[in-house]
């Protein structure tokens, strides 16, 4: 178990926030569908997965193939991938709603839930047959114009605190000692059999090793005393896009006719229908909207988190975590989903920071159980008492 190191905390918090933005986008889909239908859309994670595949195929058709990739990124390609992924996901969401969920609407809620699980399984395992035989692939990160392997070019760096000059001095002092002992050892061991040294030379070697260890310790301490935060440029763009999408969603829900109809349907199905709202088309619209947001999240997760491999189980964990985020913030509550998503990403990175990377995926469920036990309505939701 690694020791808790406060100098890396700001970096981990920021990384968590960036990942949390994606969870927030996916959580919005869960929360909107739950708000309208009271259904946990288990297939939402799979919509996310299909969005990532859509992104991958679009990037390939634009020439960023693994075999022969273009080297220059382009903003146009990124925009096309985002819009394409959102469109594909929107259509898939509408299809799932129409073919699987709508016929179940009159049945008990548990039947819809089982159907949702079935759809999710079908997309995971059926996808393995048709989508590149399920072999993991990644989107070429070079498609992004700001991508660079070089940490200085590819990152925005913020220096929160420079390295402590005293520690640097101490390290430099040790450096001289290390070099002199090393030189002494090199001189003494010259021309001798490395595996069969006389005792005095062995002593020199161990003192050289000690000096080196002391220097490494001191320079490590000096490095750690500086607090830097590195933001990959791609992920900053991702956060920006997420904020824009969320603002658009807020506008849509609060200030348009469709949004008002959506809110009405989520309050009361029948009353909304009596007021002349076409409930079916509003539900389809909700699915399209939620799935398109998942598609945007998938595009960004696949493109900007370099090294992410896409397979048909790509959406399982993000889906579950986003669901937990939605519950955390208060399911059915749009700002709650965003808050929950961001907190979820941060919580996950705190677990890594605290030295338990193996438990990264478990924290979501621990949070879920804790929330449901102690505040079932979520952070921003209301605790409704069930009436009989």
């Amino acid at each position, binding site marked *: 178990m690694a020791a808790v190191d406060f100098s890396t905390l700001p970096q981990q918090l920021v990384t968590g926030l960036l990942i949390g933005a994606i969870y927030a986008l996916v959580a919005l889909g869960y929360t909107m569908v739950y708000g309208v239908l009271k259904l946990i859309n288990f297939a939402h994670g799979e919509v996310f997965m299909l969005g990532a595949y859509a992104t991958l195929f679009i990037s390939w058709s634009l020439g960023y193939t693994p075999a022969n990739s273009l080297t220059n990124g382009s903003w146009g390609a990124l925009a096309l991938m985002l819009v394409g992924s959102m469109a594909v996901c929107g259509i898939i969401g509408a299809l799932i709603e129409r073919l699987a969920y709508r016929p179940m609407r009159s049945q008990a809620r548990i039947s819809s839930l089982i*159907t949702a*699980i079935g759809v999710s399984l079908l997309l995971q*395992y059926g996808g393995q047959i048709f989508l590149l035989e399920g072999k993991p692939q990644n989107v070429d990160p070079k498609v992004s114009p700001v991508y660079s392997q070089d940490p200085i070019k590819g990152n925005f760096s913020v220096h929160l605190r420079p390295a402590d000059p005293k520690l640097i001095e101490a390290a430099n002092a040790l450096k001289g000692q290390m070099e002199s002992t090393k030189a002494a050892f090199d001189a003494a061991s010259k021309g001798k059999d490395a595996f069969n040294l006389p005792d005095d030379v062995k002593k020199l070697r161990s003192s050289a090793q000690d000096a080196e260890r002391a220097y490494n310790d001191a320079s490590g301490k000096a490095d750690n005393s500086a607090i830097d935060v590195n933001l990959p440029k791609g992920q900053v763009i991702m956060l920006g896009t997420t904020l824009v999408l969320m603002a658009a969603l807020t506008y849509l829900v609060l200030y348009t006719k469709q949004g008002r109809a959506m809110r009405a349907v989520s309050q009361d199905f029948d009353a909304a229908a009596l007021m002349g709202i076409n409930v079916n088309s509003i539900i389809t619209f909700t699915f399209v909207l939620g799935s398109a947001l998942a598609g945007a999240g998938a595009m960004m997760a696949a493109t900007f988190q370099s090294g992410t491999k896409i397979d048909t189980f790509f959406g399982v964990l993000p889906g579950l975590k986003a669901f937990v985020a939605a519950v955390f913030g208060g399911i059915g509550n749009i700002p709650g989903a965003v808050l929950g998503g961001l907190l979820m990403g941060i919580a996950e990175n705190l677990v890594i920071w605290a030295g338990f990377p*193996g438990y990264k995926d478990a924290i979501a469920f621990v949070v879920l159980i804790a929330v449901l036990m102690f505040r079932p309505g979520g952070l921003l939701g209301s605790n409704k008492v069930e009436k009989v």
Partner: protein
Amino acid sequence: MKFWGVRAVSIVAAFLLCFVLEKASRGLDSFTQQLIVFMGLYVTLAVSLNLINGITGQFSIGHAAFYQVGAYTSAYLGITLFPKFHGNLFVWLLLMSIAGGVTAAIAGFVVGLPSLRLKGDYLAIVTLGFGEIVRIVIQNQKALGESGGMDVKPHTTEQPVMFVALLAVLCIAVCRNLLKTAHGLPFLAVREDEVASSAMGVNVTATKVIAFTLGSAFAGAAGAVYANSLGAINPDLFRSDLSILVLSMVVLGGTGSITGSALAAIALFYIPEKMRDITDVRLSLILGGLLAVGLGVSAIRYVTNHVHKAPLVRAGLYLASIVGGVIIAEIFAAGLGKVPALAGNVAGAKLRLVVSAVVLIVLMLVRPQGVFAHHEFSWSWVARLFGRKAPTTEVAA
């Protein structure tokens, strides 16, 4: 007197079945024997999940966690204690499954507690989360082999067919007796209406926790046998897919029907296992098949909802919709086969969970109560089958 006679016939028939299975499997190769063992384990898992899901109505999709707890208990005890054990392997297996059952029951008790406050889809997601937590925690324990898993002592070449058959029979018997006696009524009452049953004096809390504890104890015992039969276990064997497969068995059989769960477990284990033997399925045929399922389902739903004719006519229409779907699918597949992108083949093994998924969806669309609904196997039904007019008794559940 008649009651005891029927009961004796049941018990003798159950033991006879175990004995016949044991004798019949002796001549087979060890792979087939292992398949029989797995089949028995799936029956145990499905029937025990049915106790939680179907009979008590607590929708749980974390059954693999209890199975895993049992398996790891057995594996860990095997490494630490087996060298000191001098006795029959059957006795060892019995001890292990009791130990696995007890640890899993404790885990089940812990999961049962949140179920007091949650219901429906929230409970489902909590049990799913619990399953993941158990898997991740075990995956991070040095003593339990981390993600590499553990070697299970003792190494036996002999598969415990008899033991598994007895375990499955025991599980079925416990569930059946629970249902048919006054002790089982609270479980059904909780499923039907929690508020009403608590008003009638049912201890809802105790009932739910007992259901979880008992169901997970059987899963744990099955897990212990699984570990010994397999010889080596790792956390990947207990992913949530397994929970969902067992859930599909319960749903297919009919939530609440023990007979249904047991038969569905056999079917959903046997069919995908057979599919491993099919090495190439045409891609176009898969698409055609999906289309056929879709068309058949919509036709059947149409007949169910809109055609009000004599039962025979309706049965004919159902048959026609299935046949029609298959014919259209064949034509569609033949057409698609000409598309170069869809000319390839897929191994049947890859389709195994696809079948599970399609079963779940189709069942929910066509017959949400499951194949057997709440019906059970009974001797009077057998008697009627042979033309004897037996007195019809009320079916519990």
